[in-house]
């Protein structure tokens, strides 16, 4: 055991390991905060959908040889998030169908564009990197760290400041709107924040694994806790611990970072589900 700890403290000497740990924990914090409201509003798949959009637009940005692909990826993803999370009587295509169309469509277009315009010799490798995050979390720079700190400060501030409104809009949007809460604005705010977090989180765990960060911690928390506040606090705690644990395990064991974090999340979900079962039996 002490060997493992000395190994970890040895790795922590390297700045890139510390950066990975900080960024990983912060992204996990943001995505679990958003995850609770997304899962409750039946948008569990939005992580997958939006990350596919980000994949597609990343490919297009690469084809256009943009130096900073964020300027294309972010607006496109935000637009899609606003389109998917919009609510109201005028919605023609229902949420899940729209999501499935956008997810499948942008995946195909992305790969098509990459294939036709790619300048890289290792196309399969590029795709794999975007989808699974590969090792990019271990190549983070100080700028990435600053960006994710700023992002999580903003996300946490939004959730602290608008906590009660977010609860009301999630629980019953019609009631909130009818009694004078600006439900549409809060919805748009959540959609934009979701898109931003997903685009930035893609660097960490890759497109395909973001969904796991959004869904597992809230599901784990919901199987045990019964009030909204407790679920929120528990989801964030679980997510942060799982991310930190996953990164440390992947460094020590030499496994891929993204999938290790998700594996730890799956473990925690099973643990919480069993606890929930036992607690309900005892009550």
């Amino acid at each position, binding site marked *: 055991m002490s060997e493992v700890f000395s190994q970890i403290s040895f790795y922590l000497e390297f700045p890139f390991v510390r950066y990975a740990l900080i960024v990983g924990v912060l992204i996990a914090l943001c995505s679990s905060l958003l995850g609770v409201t997304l899962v409750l509003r039946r948008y569990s798949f939005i992580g997958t959908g939006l990350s596919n959009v980000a994949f597609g637009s990343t490919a297009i940005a690469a084809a256009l040889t943009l130096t900073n692909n964020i300027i294309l990826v972010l607006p496109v993803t935000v637009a899609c998030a606003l389109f998917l999370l919009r609510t109201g009587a005028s919605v023609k295509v229902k949420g899940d169908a729209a999501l499935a169309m956008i997810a499948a469509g942008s995946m195909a277009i992305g790969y098509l564009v990459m294939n036709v315009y790619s300048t890289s010799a290792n196309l399969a490798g590029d795709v794999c990197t975007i989808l699974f995050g590969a090792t990019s979390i271990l190549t983070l720079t100080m700028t990435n760290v600053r960006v994710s700190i700023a992002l999580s400060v903003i996300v946490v501030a939004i959730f602290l400041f608008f906590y009660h409104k977010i609860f*009301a809009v999630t629980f019953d949007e019609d009631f909130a*709107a009818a009694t004078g809460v600006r439900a549409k604005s809060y919805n748009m705010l959540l959609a934009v924040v979701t898109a931003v977090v997903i685009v930035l989180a893609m660097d960490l765990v890759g497109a395909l694994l973001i969904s796991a960060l959004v869904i597992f911690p809230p599901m784990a928390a919901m199987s045990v806790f019964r009030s909204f506040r407790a679920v929120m606090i528990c989801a964030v705690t679980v997510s942060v611990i799982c991310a930190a644990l996953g990164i440390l395990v992947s460094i020590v064991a030499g496994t891929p970072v993204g999938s290790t974090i998700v594996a730890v999340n799956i473990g925690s979900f099973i643990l919480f589900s069993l606890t929930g079962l036992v607690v309900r039996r005892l009550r």
Partner: protein
Amino acid sequence: MALLTCDNLAIGYEAKTIISNLSFTVERGDFLCIAGENGSGKSTLMKTILGLMTPLSGQIIFADGLKNHEIGYLPQQTAVQKDFPASVYEVVLSGCLGYSGLRPFYRNEEKNLAKDNMERLGISALRRCSYRELSGGQQQRVLLARALCAARTLLLLDEPAAGLDTAAAAVMYEHIKQLNSDGLTIIMISHDVEKAAEYASHILSLGTGKGLFFGTVAAYLQAERTIEGIRHE
């Protein structure tokens, strides 16, 4: 001036008008029951009154000073709420949000209002329980308590007894009747006109077969009797 005036209203969705030429008024202290079959536009009318939908034509005029956040609303339950992890207190308290503006926390008077309304509906003991673990009747009372936190003047109820057994429905109707006696103006949707006639003061019937009817309960029953009489002859 009437609390609520609907003047020559047409409601529905872009392509489809459900009701047109609808005019009626609601005075302070009234208990209006909106009746009609499924698809006759009851819920659409209520959503239009609440401002969740825009009328296709015509006007909805509120008495001076009646603002959005003085109106309470008991919607039909949605699928999302069935397994929502929220305590009863959290749900009831969210009824107070309308007057908080951008303020990120609840004031003490709002917390007290929530507690008073839970007391009023006999759900104080359930305060810490999870909403998803309650019975249908208890859930409806929680949502009614939430609506009361918002309702200073006017309370709109969309099928408050939907899905409840006879006993739970009777409890619900008694609570609503009591609220009306306490001075709250009530607009309630119900497909059970017989039952509603025992409590309401006015009836707006959107029945597609019989055409529109708006008037007092006495006038409604009179009209029903006349129609019955004609049928018998």
